[in-house]
């Protein structure tokens, strides 16, 4: 798996493990998890993947979660990785 595939896989896997919750709650849990445990570059890549409109391999909940992450991620870090 290349890095992007790996990130997509991970996001989907996290989403599946919150599968018993309803869509919004699950997405929120996934977003919380990503914010807490992913480094800025990983977040940036998955956000870009969705922003580019290529996010089709993400499950519905995972995609929603990534859009939540995009809103909450610290823009300076997420944007530059600096």
């Amino acid at each position, binding site marked *: 798996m290349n890095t992007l595939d790996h990130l997509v896989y991970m996001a989907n896997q*996290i989403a599946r493990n919150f599968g*018993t919750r309803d869509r919004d709650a699950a997405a929120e849990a996934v977003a919380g998890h990503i914010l807490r*445990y992913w480094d800025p570059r990983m977040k940036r890549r998955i956000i870009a993947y969705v922003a580019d409109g290529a996010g089709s391999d993400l499950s519905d909940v995972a995609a929603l979660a990534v859009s939540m992450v995009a809103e909450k991620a610290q823009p300076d870090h997420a944007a530059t990785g600096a």
Partner: protein
Amino acid sequence: MTYQPQKDFGTPASNASDTVSLSIDGREISVPAGTSVMRAAAELDNNIPKLCATDNVKSFGSCRLCLIEIEGRKGTPASCTTPVEDGMVVKTQTPHLQKLRKGVMELYISDHPLDCLTCSANNDCELQDQAANVGLRDLRYGYEGANHLGEATDTSNPYFDFDPSKCIACSRCVRACDEVQGTFALTMDGRGFASKISAGLPTDDFLSSECVSCGACVEACPTATLQEKAVTEIGKPDRTEITTCAYCGVGCTFRAEMRGEQLVRMVPWKDGKANRGHSCVKGRFAWGYANHQDRITKPMIRESIDQPWREVSWDEALGHAASEIKRIQKKYGRLSVGGITSSRCTNEETFLVQKLVRAGFGNNNVDTCARVCHSPTGYGLNTTFGTSAGTQDFDSVEESDVILVIGANPTDAHPVFASRMKKRLRGIDGKPPAKLIVIDPRRIDLVKSPHIEASHHLPLQPGTNVAVLTAMAHVIVTEGLADEAFIRERCDWDEYAEWAAFVADDRHAPETLEPVTRVPSEELRAAARLFATGGNGAIYYGLGVTEHSQGSSTVMAIANLAMATGNIGRPGVGVNPLRGQNNVQGACDMGSFPHELSGYRHVSDATTRALFEDDWGVPIDSEPGLRIPNMLDAAVDGEFKALYVQGEDILQSDPNTKHVSAGLAAMECVIVHDLFLNETANYAHIFLPGSTFLEKNGTFTNAERRIQLVNKVMTPVNGMEDWEVTQALANAMGLGWRYSHPSEIMDEIARLTPTFAGVNFARLKEAGSLQWPVNEAAPDGSPIMHVDGFVRGKGQFVVTDYVPTDEKTGPRFPLLLTTGRILSHYNVGAQTRRTENTSWHPEDLLEMHPTDAENRGLKDGDWTRLSSRSGETTLRLTVTERVAPGVVYTTFHHPATQANVVTTDFSDWATNCPEYKVTAVQVAASNGPTDWQEEYEELSEQARRIETVEAAE
């Protein structure tokens, strides 16, 4: 002070709370009821002559040397088997007793070789001592009678010899093996004069017997019959130092017995609270690696990995490392470098490595080898209980009534704790034995061993832990066995209700899940009922729980089960992770994870960050850093370029070897800090030689959260303790650190970490050990956690849905491979492979069920090719019913096997802990090593070359 063995009180301590007073030779003493007269006298330093008694095992009363007189009683009872009574008046020395004792000694000595001067036990022999104590001067029987002299010595065990001609048939060894170790390897054949000790069958020698070489019998033996080879070779030790074993998470403490700077033997410390005077083959005997010829003692560098290594000075190596890190950060950015801490190093060393990364590299790219073993424990227990650690001390097992072991193989991986658990399972001292439930794909030794049999063994399909635990919860909830009073008091009732409704659903019934788990539903129901209703229930788990794609979910499912049955917050119960490496707990506590600072505080928490920023005088990044697998991904992408690895061999221990090597190969500067040129060093540019636990000061924290001191017993052959190396690297980067002793690092840890607030070296020395949290609320530490309430407030029930792994069997890969470890080796085996422990495990073997073997036309001992979607390797086959049909099993101790070439990069959803325990594979006959093995062998040889330089001066 000259050498003294640790005092032997003759019989075990009584833990009764009521006391009894008596008089011994005119002196008064009060001792706990149940104490023997012998022990009471020993407390007064009145050492009654004895041979068959020793305080590790119950008294036996066979030698008749310890006779005493008691006022108002006839005869001369043995003091080792006579319990104290109130008002007893005891005499230990009278002319009559003296005469009797001399007679006994005469008999022993007339059947004993009189080569004391050249005997390996000279001056450290109880027979000699007692002959002196009773004043033996001549032998009426002469030396000509029948005797056992001249029998052949059994030298088969690599660490100790058995010389039967010196045996006095006291049976201390047999009792030590039975009671302390629980292996029942020795027998006393015959009676009286014909008595003879043997290891199992008459044809067995020690090596081929059931003996696991724990050494308990050697320690118990009062003569030179069972004697360490090292003592025979080197001589009697002349000083001792207390220290802590550096192998596994049990954390046994030892007296390192030295002669000058040479280690003679390691003797388990009776006051050690983790091991209580016991040890396993690794800790007691496998320390020879410290002086192995492969040990690298000088720093080395090279431009690229196809060049040979060049020995350089410390200054040059450190200067080069510092300038490389700076160069790379300048070129590729602040986040392009990182570090890995080691669970084998001390808390202080680990703390410094993460400090170097956070304060020196200016990012949070620090991770630890716990990533690949127990990171799900941290996540799962923190979420449910509020602390990333086990809830009990080891003593707690003595009060358990039902013990559930899941995904752990304690007799191999945590042998000393296993011995303590087995003691409880045999029901010694009148208490009925605890019941045992084992959930494991393999029939591990614990399932059936001498005097122990599991009530239930659930041989589940690898990867279905969550399904099995949910089914057990289903039984408990639907049959009304949950402890609702506990739940109402200690947990959030609504959360419980939601969880209970989830597990009660029909789709979680054991019958419905049987096709998935392959566990017979009736057996599972019975096990669940037993756990819920059998009294104090304790859960012990290991890597078979964590190393799965649902590792974190399984840990939470275990926590749910413990809360639902009210098994938290008192002795005898609890959730107990059995940690792999010695300092996994400590490495996690010290802030080795990229998202948290010491004491499990997230880097996004501004208050915590401010604490560190004030102390260190640098800003701390608020964003989490990269975890090991993410570092490797980033390296392959060209974004991560330099790594400092302390005491860890990620190439061999991490999954999917090819991915790891690709990541390492893509980096511009890999700094390996270790004892040996390990597999990771094949890809390294800078090698910094490390020191062993015998050569350093510091602390380790074991699986019970017990912080224990590691004391330096010899000078580091590489010149520096590991914390000094990290400090020198930091200073080469201009950080200006000035620690002069690890105690100062611990003071900093205590200052910055609330759960360690009361810890310092002086207190550790005084108390022997402390279990964190140690703070104002618990000044003497916390043997049991969550006593009056959960650390997080209310215990949290978490719904854990079973999500099957994506690693699936199919026509090409029809078998499931699961991996584990064995007793004589440790982790990647870097140390144990460099000791005589290879006598037991010279290579990794593949276990397969007879049916599967027959279907493939394979038989025991065949070379086989093991292949998965990731890669393939070859190894030899063992055909055994320990594994179920469809499942194969191997270990990963030897680099030539490279079992991790086969494992995949699937991992735990929450922590990325790799899924070692489930890989779909195929096995076929083979005629030799795979291409990868051959190429790798060649690369290793190339990469390990060291340039020979002409000696300067």
